Every structure is written in structure tokens, then in C-alpha cells.
């Protein structure tokens, strides 16, 4: 069954001097969130941006896919900490994604964890929508007890 999710965005004025708002999302989980060109292209100053939202979508998707894979292998995670960094070059586009995962997973060794993390990175729906990013890196490690 298809799943739809929505967001509403408004903008007033020119790109450089105007400002926008992610007014809200279908779930009501967040918003309104202000956005501006300056906070997207320079220091965020507390404001989110499309690239940060892509990073959030990606980190949440990879985490879920990894939890699924690990559980399927008989080693469900206690905890996964996933950070994603998205790099944007104005005029060029989104040029890099860096995924870092630290897992607390009883009963798995390093190689097994890395293999599961690779699978999650390849197969999660957001990763598959972002295959056009030229460089994607993954660093997966187990938390030291």
C-alpha cells in the first residue's frame, strides 16, 4: 500500500532578501520552521534547510533499515546512533553524503555489523532516491562496551 506524506512551504520576497517557512507537515510533528537563503548557504543560525532535512530523512531511513536487517539476522540492536552529513555546492548541487553509524548490538561482530550497515545503506528507500549523489561514504562501528 502506498504511503503519502505532505509538507507545506511558503515564501515571500526575493531569494536573497525574502524568507520562507515550512508551515507544517501532515503529521503535525513540527513547524512552522523558518528558512532563508542565507541560513541555507551560510551559517544556519538556528534555521533548518533542505539539505538538513534530507540528512534527517536519510539518517532515519537507514536506521530503520538497519534495525530491520539486524533483527532479521537474529541480532536486533539495542541502540543505533546514526549521523548523516549532506554537502551542497551551490551551482553544482548535492555532491556528498556521509553516513556514520555506531551500534550497540549484542551477538554480532564488527564485520557482520558493517555488512548489515552496507545493506541498509544500499536498500533503504531514501538511499534509493538519492543514488544521484556522486559520493556516499559509510562508517559503521560497534560501540565499545
Amino acid at each position: 500500500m502506498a504511503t503519502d506524506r505532505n509538507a507545506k512551504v511558503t515564501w515571500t520576497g526575493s531569494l536573497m532578501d525574502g524568507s520562507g517557512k515550512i508551515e507544517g507537515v501532515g503529521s503535525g510533528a513540527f513547524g512552522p520552521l523558518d528558512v532563508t537563503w542565507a541560513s541555507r548557504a551560510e551559517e544556519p543560525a538556528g534555521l533548518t534547510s533542505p539539505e538538513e532535512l534530507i540528512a534527517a530523512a536519510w539518517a532515519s531511513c537507514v536506521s530503520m533499515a538497519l534495525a530491520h536487517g539486524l533483527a532479521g539476522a537474529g541480532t536486533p540492536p539495542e541502540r543505533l546512533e546514526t549521523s548523516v552529513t549532506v554537502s551542497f555546492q551551490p551551482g553544482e548541487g548535492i555532491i556528498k553524503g556521509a553516513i556514520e553509524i555506531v551500534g550497540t548490538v549484542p551477538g554480532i561482530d564488527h564485520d557482520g555489523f558493517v555488512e548489515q550497515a552496507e545493506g541498509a545503506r544500499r536498500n533503504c528507500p531514501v538511499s534509493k532516491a538519492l543514488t544521484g549523489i556522486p559520493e556516499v561514504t559509510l562508517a559503521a562501528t560497534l560501540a565499545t562496551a
Partner: protein
Amino acid sequence: MPRIVRDADVVWEGNLARGEGAITAASSGAFTALPYSLPTRIAAPEGKTSPEELLASAHGGCFTMSLAGELTAAGTPPGRLDVHCRITMDEVEGQGHLIVHSALAVRARVDGLDAEAFAKAVDAAHEGCSFSSLLRAAGVGIDIETTLDGGD
């Protein structure tokens, strides 16, 4: 212009079916520890966000800024843009779950802009928005429905 970097952090605890995660906008701090789970991702959201909802926010935000940029460059900066984005995830035979579609509905109020110039700006925004480019490259369908409110 130097490279722009944005980070997000997620903590997930437990297996997929019964576990839960928390999503934080790490660069800006604009949102912190938003909960999400499998049931609320694929069924009713019950107040919780999801990867697809974040993609809808990202695509809506990216396209809106791109269109504001095109209209500004054409000498007709927008009075107001209202953009709605709907992301659809579906199970595709043999490929599992995929992001299959993004639907953008754009309403613009722009003084001194005719329909032809508006259509040109929308096309250019679609070409120029970095996230639209990625979705196109991955074969995700994108529809754009536009309405121009006369500013004059």
C-alpha cells in the same frame, strides 16, 4: 561559494517492529528528538514524522527557494509562493519499498508576471532545484501543478 554542510542525528532503539527512533536537526537545532516508528511511518502518522515527511519538507523547501531565485533573476520577485509537496512511497515488485513520486502544487502571487514567464520560471526552478535533480536521476516521478494569482 564554499561547500555547505548540514548534519542530522538519529538514535534508534530496539528492533524494527517495536522499536522507536528520534530525529534531531544537528546543524541548526531547529528540531530535536522528533520520535518516529515503523507503524507511524507506514500507517497513520499519529503526530509523528517520518523519512518521507522530511523528504516532502526538503523538496518543498528546495523547490520554493529555487522558484524564488528564478523569479528574482527574471526581475519579478514573488509577493508570495505557497508550495505543497506530497511524497509517495510504495512497494514495487522486485524492488521493495521505493520513493515513487513527488507532487508539487505551487500557487504564486507575483506582480507583473504573465503565464508564459511563470511557466518558464517553474521549468527553470525544476531544473535548478538540487533535490529535484536527484529525484529525477533516481527515476522518481515529479508532477508540478501551478496556479498564478494575478498581481496586477
